[in-house]
Structures are given as structure tokens and as C-alpha cells.
């Protein structure tokens, strides 16, 4: 091909990119129940492909916590046709990147590829959707890797430990009380058969969504999906029990002791999530409440507690309106030197009481909205992020039109609604408070080396 035709092709590319920059998600369903969602985005000659299984840690049972995440690891350990390690090798060989993640609500596998390699990713994903082999040998090695992962992410991270323990107290009945990575004791007693059972139960086209975003044509994507996933049979999926959380009847408090230098405070209030995107109003108000409290460097709590009050060195407010299970409005903070957790908690409560009593100003609310509007544009810089949003909505069971309607819904929220939302949610009877009680890290004086001192090894 000569240079002239390169330019012509390039010009066409630019035109299509402009035309399709805001293209709607195209929604298909194969006969076996696999949902296929495509967002065309021709800004770069790449594609991201994600397979979402509606099976996360919330679908586990006591005694085998962590099996959803363990299975995610086993999915890289080979099938009849594609031996252990070959999945990653084949993707890497063509320039791809791949990984997977397990959440409370879902397990997701993804590849990022040059756009002409989409077929390879579909071929491999379809194969391991139905033909995974779980040998005792690979299982025995991989469970060790997972235990190392738990040590790294939780056992040696004091704040992660507090979060894990706090959730197990905040939820009494709902499976969100169990850590995604699983309790260590359950990992120690897990068997290869547990992993096989999990795979047999949940890995099926009718329990999955394929999301593709990139420089592709939706019809081509669906044709490929039919070719590779089409022949896989649907399975009868087990009934899911709601396991609804009973109403909390009073504040819960826990202390967690762990080696650390600074204390840490986590407060979580039970809150609703979006179920009916047209009628629900509270989740939108809560999202803006989080923005007013902590959306930027001089937001309410940042200004009052970090910048001016100097009671905290760090503070974060979080709320996610999209989940299969129940929601939580939470706040975490690290007190400044010389400030106790009690003093910090009282100051936080005083600030929240002000919102409940006096509400928020129009200016504060508009500021929070400006950030929602801007980030809606910024998100389009990343195809991967777009795919994440699409896959999450689909897996949780919300309509995809929320992607387009979200900003308008948030814009419509009034200051009064934010005030009312705060009053309704920020209540002690629905609150769990968890505190990190730092334990000394220095060993007792002895001949052994201390940090910073050179020693032979």
C-alpha cells in the first residue's frame, strides 16, 4: 500500500471517529442467552473485550468464601485445547494485555488488543467458558498464590483489615459481610472440587455478558460472538436467594488491633442503591452529597476537618449507587498527630449535623454537579473505562440508557433533596464505626536487627 492511500484511509477514519464518538451502545442477545454489548469508538485502532459473569463473592456460601476469586485464577490454568499458560501467551504474542478481577457482584475477564485481534480473544474466552480443566496439581499451586495475595492485600494492610472486619459487622445477613478474597481459614480448607462446583454452577453463556468497545463494527462483533460463543449450551442457573439485610437496630462499634503507626476511622451507614432508575431519587442525591462533602480540595469536610480544623490528615467519602446488593454511604479518615479518633469522630458528626440541620448551598451543589458533567466527558478518553461502566450496569441489571440519562438525573437534584437524603441516611441506628488501634511495630529490644540497621542475611 502506498502513502496516498494511507492518507485517504486516515481521512475516513477521522470522519467515522467524529460521527461515532457518542454512538449508543448496541445491545444483542444470542440464542444461548449470551448478551453482547458493543460501543463503537474509533479514536485509536484498538479494542477492549470483557466477559462479565454474574457470579461474585456474594454468590458464595459460608465455608467456601473466596471460591469466586480462586476460580478466576484457575481460569488461566488451561483447557483441553489450550494448555495451562497458553491463554496468556497467545494474547501476549499479538500485543495484547489481559487480566481479570473479582468483585462482590461479578467476575470479569478482559483483553486489550490491536483491533484486528478481537477474534483471538473471543476464541479463547469461549473455550474457557465451557472447557476449563481444574487439575488437583494446578489447584494446589494456585491456592498458595491466592493465600499470598490475601497476605499482601489484607493481612499486611491494616486499613484493609479494618474494612474487612467492619463489613463483617455492618452486614449481619447479606453476603457482603464476607471478604471477596475469602477468609484465610476457608482458603486453607478449600478443595479443587469446590472450584469445579463453582465453575459448573455459574460459568455459562446465559450468566454472562460480552462487552466490546473500540474501533470495531457492531455487526462484525456479533458475527464473531455467534461463531465462537454461539455453539455453547445454556445451563439451568440455580435460584438466587435475596438474603436481604434486616434493618439495623442501633449503632455498631468495633476496634481492630494491627501493627501500624497511625490510627484510622471508618464509618458506614446503610443506604439504598439504584433499582428503578426512573423513580428512585435518593441514590442521585446521595451521590451529590458525597460530592459536596468531599468532591474537591475545599469541599465541606476537606475544608472543615483537613484544611482549617487540621483534625485529619486524610479524609474520604464514598458512595456507589450501582450494586446487586445493598448500598453503603461511608467515610474514612486518619486523625492528625495528637488528635484522638474520638475527637475526630465528634468533629465529623458535628459537620454532618450541620448538613442535616441547614442543608447545602446552591453554590456547593452546582460545584458538585460541574464535576459530574466534566467527568462524563473525561471518561470518554478511556475505552476500558467505558466498557467497565457498560458491563457493570448490565451485570447489575440496570438499563443501559442510564449511561445517557445519568447526567440529567444528577443535574435535576435540588439542595433540599440533598438535605433530606442526609437526614434520612446519616442516622446512628444504621451506622457502623470501626477503628484501627495501632500496635507497636518495633520488636522488643534484643540482639536482632532493627529497622534501618544493616545486617547480614
Amino acid at each position: 500500500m502506498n502513502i496516498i492511500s494511507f492518507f485517504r484511509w486516515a481521512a475516513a477514519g477521522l470522519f467515522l471517529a467524529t460521527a461515532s464518538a457518542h454512538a449508543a451502545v448496541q445491545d444483542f442477545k444470542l440464542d444461548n442467552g449470551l448478551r453482547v454489548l458493543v460501543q463503537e469508538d474509533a479514536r485509536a485502532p484498538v479494542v477492549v473485550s470483557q466477559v462479565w459473569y454474574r457470579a461474585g463473592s456474594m454468590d458464595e456460601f459460608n465455608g467456601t468464601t473466596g471460591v469466586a476469586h480462586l476460580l478466576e485464577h484457575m481460569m488461566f490454568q488451561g483447557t483441553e485445547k489450550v494448555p495451562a499458560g497458553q491463554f496468556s501467551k497467545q494474547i501476549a504474542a499479538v500485543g495484547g494485555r489481559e487480566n481479570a478481577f473479582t468483585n462482590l457482584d461479578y467476575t470479569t475477564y478482559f483483553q486489550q488488543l490491536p483491533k484486528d485481534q478481537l477474534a483471538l480473544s473471543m476464541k479463547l474466552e469461549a473455550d474457557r467458558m465451557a472447557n476449563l480443566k481444574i487439575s488437583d496439581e494446578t489447584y494446589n499451586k494456585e491456592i498458595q498464590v491466592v493465600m499470598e495475595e490475601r497476605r499482601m492485600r489484607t493481612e499486611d494492610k491494616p486499613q484493609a483489615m479494618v474494612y474487612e472486619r467492619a463489613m463483617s459487622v455492618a452486614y449481619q445477613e447479606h453476603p457482603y459481610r464476607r471478604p471477596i478474597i475469602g477468609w484465610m481459614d476457608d482458603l486453607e480448607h478449600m478443595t479443587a472440587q469446590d472450584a469445579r462446583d463453582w465453575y459448573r454452577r455459574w460459568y455459562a453463556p446465559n450468566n454472562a455478558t460480552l462487552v466490546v468497545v473500540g474501533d470495531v463494527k457492531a455487526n462484525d462483533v456479533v458475527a464473531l460472538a455467534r461463531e465462537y460463543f454461539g455453539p455453547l449450551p445454556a445451563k439451568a442457573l440455580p435460584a438466587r436467594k435475596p438474603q436481604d439485610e434486616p434493618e439495623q437496630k442501633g449503632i455498631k462499634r468495633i476496634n481492630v488491633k494491627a501493627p501500624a503507626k497511625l490510627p484510622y476511622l471508618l464509618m458506614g451507614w446503610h443506604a439504598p442503591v439504584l433499582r428503578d432508575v426512573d423513580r428512585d431519587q435518593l441514590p442521585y442525591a446521595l451521590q451529590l452529597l458525597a460530592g459536596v462533602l468531599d468532591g474537591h480540595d475545599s469541599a465541606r469536610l476537606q475544608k472543615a476537618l483537613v484544611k482549617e480544623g487540621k483534625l485529619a490528615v486524610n479524609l474520604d467519602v464514598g458512595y456507589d449507587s450501582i450494586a446487586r446488593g445493598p448500598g453503603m454511604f461511608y467515610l474514612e479518615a486518619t486523625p492528625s498527630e495528637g488528635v484522638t479518633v474520638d475527637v475526630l469522630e465528634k468533629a465529623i458528626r458535628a459537620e454532618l449535623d450541620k448538613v442535616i440541620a441547614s442543608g447545602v448551598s446552591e453554590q456547593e451543589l452546582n460545584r458538585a454537579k460541574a464535576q459530574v458533567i466534566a467527568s462524563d466527558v473525561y471518561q470518554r478518553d478511556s475505552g476500558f473505562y467505558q466498557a467497565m461502566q457498560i458491563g457493570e450496569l448490565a451485570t447489575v441489571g440496570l438499563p443501559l440508557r442510564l449511561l445517557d440519562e445519568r447526567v440529567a438525573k444528577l443535574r435535576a437534584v435540588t439542595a433540599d433533596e440533598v438535605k433530606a437524603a442526609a437526614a434520612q441516611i446519616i442516622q446512628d441506628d444504621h451506622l457502623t464505626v470501626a477503628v484501627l488501634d495501632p500496635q507497636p511495630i518495633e520488636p522488643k529490644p534484643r540482639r536482632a536487627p532493627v529497622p534501618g540497621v544493616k545486617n547480614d542475611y
Partner: protein
Amino acid sequence: MITDLLPRLLLALAAWTALAAHAALPIQHWTTAEGARVYFVESHNLPMLDVSVDFPAGSAYDAPDKAGLARLTQVMLDQGAGQMSEEEIANRLADVGAELGGRFDRDRAGVTLRTLSSAKERSEALAILVDVLQHPHFPDAAFQRERNRMLAELKEQEAQPEDVADKAFYRAVYGTHPYGLPESGTARGLNQVKQEDLARFHAAHYVAAGAVISMIGDLSRTEAEQLAARISAGLPTGPAPASIAAPVAVKPETLKLSLPSTQSHILMGLQGMSRTDPDYFPLYVGNYVLGGGGFDSRLLEEERQKRGYAYSAYSYFNPLVQPGPLEIGLQTRQEHTEDALKVAHETVQNFVAQGPTQAELTQAKGNLVGGFPLRLDTNKKILEYLAAIGFYRLPLNYLDTWTSKVQAVSLDQVRDAFRRRVNPDALSVVVVGPQATQ
């Protein structure tokens, strides 16, 4: 403009030898009247703009007795500037949905801005950026507070095995060279910093002659020139700071540090390569096989796939103005520490002695060359490349020739470069974690 040229790039990859001269990315470059170097990519696909301005003002410019001054200066830039208090800066940025961020490492300190490109939002956000760079106040109250926050962060790091290991590692590999100082400084150093040190550091290091202005997004060339001129014109004047001295060789050390964690964090390494190193491509491609290529790499194969010792095991070169380190890392529970360390050491030894196999090298090139478009698929990633090309004075066609340079790396070049540059007996070793009780 990005989409306009990327498809050409993809085709160029298929026939890379013939077409290597083609522009992967149309980078426009000029120098302002005051000497700031400007790198611009015009892209109107999204109604937004990304800007970054970097200076030779990273932690390697700290004096050891005031280690932390460089980072604190950068943190303090937006805590009051021009006619605005810190609160006004934060509120006005929030009002237009702009995101002000930073970039900080041993070589560089910088400010990043992401804004909508609509006229009102853009002009407000850029006005704040200009003030933050040119007229920071460094007020005393914010200085005291931000220093305390940094001190708290340093304190918390003392209990985190990965942070303790990282600091010990750089100290072991660089000794008293400025790269041996922690990026966020030390408690002792921060406590020595006086308020007036910040303005002095800013005046000496945030000068136009050393500045690199990078921009990508919905902006015309004329607008980009005006913006760059405006940023550059009000920056401190004077010569760019002297370059960081080359590190001297140090005697390899083995450090074992005690923390009550469940895992040992192991780091091994030595002084590696610079950003403009003649061995850059052989070492970069070779490292994919050693520990950079995930499941394609020998370290992950040996430590995780074969033995289940670790969740993560890796190696990478951190190329800086001067040779940054080759770092090899993994974490494992205490019982496996000795074995995992031995396996890592043998893996390096074998790789240096024999080099990669032909199959490994082919796999590495397949991934690096095939995956090249993924390096440029967002404005954010492109901005990082513009900033690096500018700061390290890489050739403007750096991205255009990148895949052909990877393809050109031979087995002999990898073997030869690793033999000359990575002596397995010269690796410093840091182990942080629970102590063996024997």
C-alpha cells in the same frame, strides 16, 4: 488528529521496515522566547484539553539535610497563588470541573491540568494553572499543615513493608547519591525546612529555561502557542538547574529489616540505565523476558507458576536522567523467603549467562510491537509520552521509530547488554518482614 494518523500507524506496523519513517503521532514542537520547550498534539475528538508543565525539580534536587523540600514545594503550589487563596483555587477549579494534578519523581516535578475545552471553562482553568506555576504564595499556615500531613504519611510508611523496602533499596543501590534519597523526603529533612525555603526552591528550579510544556486536545496551534507563551513568560528566570551528577558505583549490600508482617518483601537490584542509554532497547526488550512480561517472564514463571511462592514477581528498569535502578521484586511468606530469594537470584544468573531463547525474544517483540497502539490509545497516555520526550530530550520521532528499534534488537545484543550491565554478584538485596527465629 490522533485518529487521523493512528490507522496509518497500524498499517505501518504490518510492514514496519518500509514505513518506519512515518509519524505515529504528529507532535508539534517549538521553544518559547524564554526557552521553555513545548510539545503539542492537536486532537479535536473530545471537547477537552490536557496540559502538563514539568521542571527539573524532583527529589534528586533535595539537599540531604532538607530531604522533602522538593516534594513539599510541589504540593504547596496550589495552596494560594496570584490573587487567590487556597480555597478559591480549589473552588474555582471545581466550578468548571477542572482537575489539577501533579507529577513527581526523582528527576521531575510538574503540574497537570485536565479541563473541558469550552471557552469559559478552559480560560478559567488555564488562568489558575498559570498563577499556580508562576505566583505561588507558600503561606505559612498551609506550609505547616502540609508538612504535618507529609510527616504523617512518612510515619505510616514505617509500618508498611513495601515502603520500608523501597527506601532501603534506593539507599543501598545509590548510597549518598541524590537518587538514594526517598522521593517524599525524610522526617528529619522535612523538620529542617523553613517556609522561605519553598519560594527559594521555586525560584531556582521552576524556571522557564528548564520547563517542558506538553499539551494534547481540543486546541488550535495558535491557541497552543499563546498558552505556552503565557505560561513561559511569567515563570522565574535564570539558568536551568545543573544536571544531576552521575552516580558512583557502590558496594552491593544485603539488608534484612524487621517488621511484624506476614510476608517478606524482597527487592534486588543495581544501578541500571538512563533514559537515553545506548543499551536502552536491548535492556528494555530483554527485561520483558526476565521479569517485565508478566506471565511471559521467567521470574513469574519460576516464583509463581512453578512454585506458588508469590502473587507478584517482576523486574523493571526505571530509566532516569542518570542511570535509574534495575529493580527485581516479590513478596512471600516467611517460610519461603530463603528459597524464593535463591530462585530469584538463580533466575537472574541464568538469564545473564545465557540470555533469552529465540522463542522468548520473538514472543517479547510480538507483544511490544503488536501492542504499540495500546500505548497511545488515550490522551492521558499520549500526554505522558509528550512529557517524557520533552524532559529527556528524546528525538521527536521517538514514537515513530520505537517499533523498528524493538524489532531490531538481536539475541546477541540482549545477551551482551545484560552481561555488561547486570552483574548478578553486584545485586544489592533488601528483605523486609518477619524475622526467622532460629
